[in-house]
């Protein structure tokens, strides 16, 4: 029997090209439906895990999916902004805590997430190095941002201007990195976190400049009349917040009207969550409260429907492949008639020849199984990342 396996193995090795084509065809036939299922299942798990861990989201009325994807993954389009007072309203209700999110800006491609310290506790994010942001202008970066940009505590980050040609628009703010988060395997690894007020400074809602009441600023003063000082264009505004100038930073206007992308609502129990959702059900409030899990379930339902169509197509393709592979084997037997006759003349039994043919098929199938397992492992390993890159689009 060992001789039959040996001859089978030698035959496949001798006809390498034919064997490889067979191996690849059978592997792909087995891998494609498996990979589709794995990809969808793993991605769905990754998507829903973060959504399930986020009880409620408050946002301005508009695209639900946009609000959820932006708040959970910091990508997709910016949802309509809501004022900071919406967060106060949630907290004043006494039914839940609120965590602000403002994700409008970026730094070298990484989203800058303006939030509060509660976010880190809520997501159970831990520090790998340094400390949490504590002062205006300080930033904590995710593990991937730190490794990709080669930065850590003590380094600086600069916010990206929104448009190159908008000279009157948002100016870059130099931020000091004070901490690096431990890897969490979530979109938090790819983000830069700042206090929401730092995000407002990036937007220009808060700024720092020389004290106009001081004599040293006389070069920047256009006029002083009846207790009113008017500055000219020479007024120096700071593009970095330092220990020396932090006192000169201030916000103009009522901060309760300043923008947020969303508010993560953290109710203590289901009853509070239900009561809160009820309050925002009428359209008068202008806001919407979403359960991220429910919104993503809708998205996944569509994904699963598409997946079923794809698998159906792949199954038909597999049937065709099986037919072709069978045909290849049958034709191969016809072509090898002389070889089998020689073996019989040399004293090989019919069983020996059958074992030889079976071993060749077995080796191809076994090789295909191994290939499928390897490819599936690779797919599984990168499935989440792949999905998130799709979300980023």
């Amino acid at each position, binding site marked *: 029997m060992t001789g039959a396996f040996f001859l089978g193995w030698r035959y496949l090795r001798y006809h390498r090209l034919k064997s490889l084509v067979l191996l690849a065809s059978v592997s792909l036939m087995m891998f494609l439906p498996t990979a589709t299922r794995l990809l969808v299942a793993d991605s769905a798990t990754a998507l829903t895990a973060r959504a399930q861990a986020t009880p409620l989201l408050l946002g301005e009325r508009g695209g639900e999916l946009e609000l959820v994807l932006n708040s959970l993954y910091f990508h997709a389009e910016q949802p309509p902004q809501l004022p900071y007072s919406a967060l106060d309203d949630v907290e004043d209700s006494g039914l839940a805590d609120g965590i602000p999110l403002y994700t409008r800006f970026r730094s070298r491609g990484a989203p800058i997430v303006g939030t509060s310290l509660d976010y880190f506790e809520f997501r159970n994010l831990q*520090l790998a190095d340094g400390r949490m942001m*504590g*002062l*205006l202008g*300080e930033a904590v970066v995710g593990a991937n941002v730190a490794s990709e940009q080669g930065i850590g505590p003590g380094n600086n980050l600069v916010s990206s201007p929104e448009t190159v040609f908008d000279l009157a628009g948002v100016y870059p703010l130099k931020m000091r990195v004070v901490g690096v988060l431990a890897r969490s395997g979530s979109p938090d690894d790819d983000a830069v976190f700042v206090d929401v007020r730092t995000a407002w400074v990036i937007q220009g809602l808060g700024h720092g400049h020389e004290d*106009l009441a001081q004599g040293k600023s006389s070069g920047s003063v256009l006029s002083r009349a009846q207790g009113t000082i*008017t500055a000219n264009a020479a007024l120096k505004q700071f593009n970095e917040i330092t*220990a020396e100038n932090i006192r000169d930073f201030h916000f103009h206007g009522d901060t309760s009207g300043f923008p947020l992308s969303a508010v993560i609502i953290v109710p203590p129990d289901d009853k509070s969550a239900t009561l809160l959702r009820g309050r925002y059900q009428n359209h008068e409030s202008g806001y919407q409260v979403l359960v991220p899990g429910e919104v993503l379930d809708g998205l996944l339902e569509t994904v699963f429907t598409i997946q079923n169509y794809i698998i159906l197509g792949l199954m038909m393709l597999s049937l065709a492949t099986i037919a072709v592979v069978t045909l290849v084997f049958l034709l191969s037997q016809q072509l090898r008639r002389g070889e089998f006759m020689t073996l019989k003349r040399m004293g090989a039994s019919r069983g020996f020849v059958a074992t030889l043919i079976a071993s060749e098929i077995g080796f191809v199938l076994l090789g295909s199984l191994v290939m499928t397992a390897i490819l599936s492992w690779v797919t599984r390993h990168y499935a989440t990342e792949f999905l998130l890159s799709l979300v980023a689009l």
Partner: protein
Amino acid sequence: MMKKLLFWSVLILLGACEEQVTDGSRLDDHVSKPLVLTSNYPLYYFASEIAGDVVNVQMPDIDGDPAMWVPGAADIPQLQAADLIVINGAGYESWLAFTSLDTDRLLDTTEDIQDLLLPIESATLHQHGPEGEHSHESIAFTTWLDPQIAIEQAGAIARGLSALVPAQAEAFETRLALLEKRLDELDGSFEQVFTNLKNQPLVFSHPIYQYLQKRYGLNARSLHWEPETEPGTRDWIDLGNLLREHPAKLMIWEATPLDTVREKLVHMGVRSVTFSPAGNQPDQGDYFMVMKDNLLQLSVGMGQKQ
């Protein structure tokens, strides 16, 4: 061949068993005694008196006036580790606008007495860019100089501590009652001394005595003079003009002024008296000793011994 297959199978199995390992420190810090930080000395004193040794009450090491303090990077870990941060409120802690803290751990001692707070009227308007005219208005923040407001603030601290250590609520209440009694006595002493000044014009070197002025009905005007700085010519002219319409014989300083300034004031018929607001930790004694010294200084300044 079989060995290779076995190798790959083991590799795949190991991959399936892979777990995400995270390291780093937890954000939560655990300390044996709750850590309470205060933003100035009066609050530190009140909190220490009420807390006893149940709570670790601390005040950041501040050089100068705590109202002007801005935490440095080195102060942030302590601030973020505190279980409770007792603040004066009324705009005293301007540094709150620059810091990221867990707001649930902030205890604003004047939050419930907003109607007692006094706005500062003189705010400079300025204009730059498209935002138009604006100013940075504020509220008078040396609230504790009115002992009755100080009592309210002490009450807020006691409530905050009780929420932090509910088992000690009764002890906190007992100690609060003692502190309130002492503050009431201080109020009585102030009333007695300031009664003699009610109809006299006074000058404050700095606009920090608004609550004292309101509480005891003082007829006072404020300057912007610093005790350690020699006033300029313009300042002396302004004072002369002020004294013509407001003939004050007494000027109250937050710290001892320069001798030259003191003498020049004497020539103008104005005596200098130091009344420390006790914003920062005194070199010697405690809050009540500083206030007792203030009373003594006032009595001497008015020519009457306490």
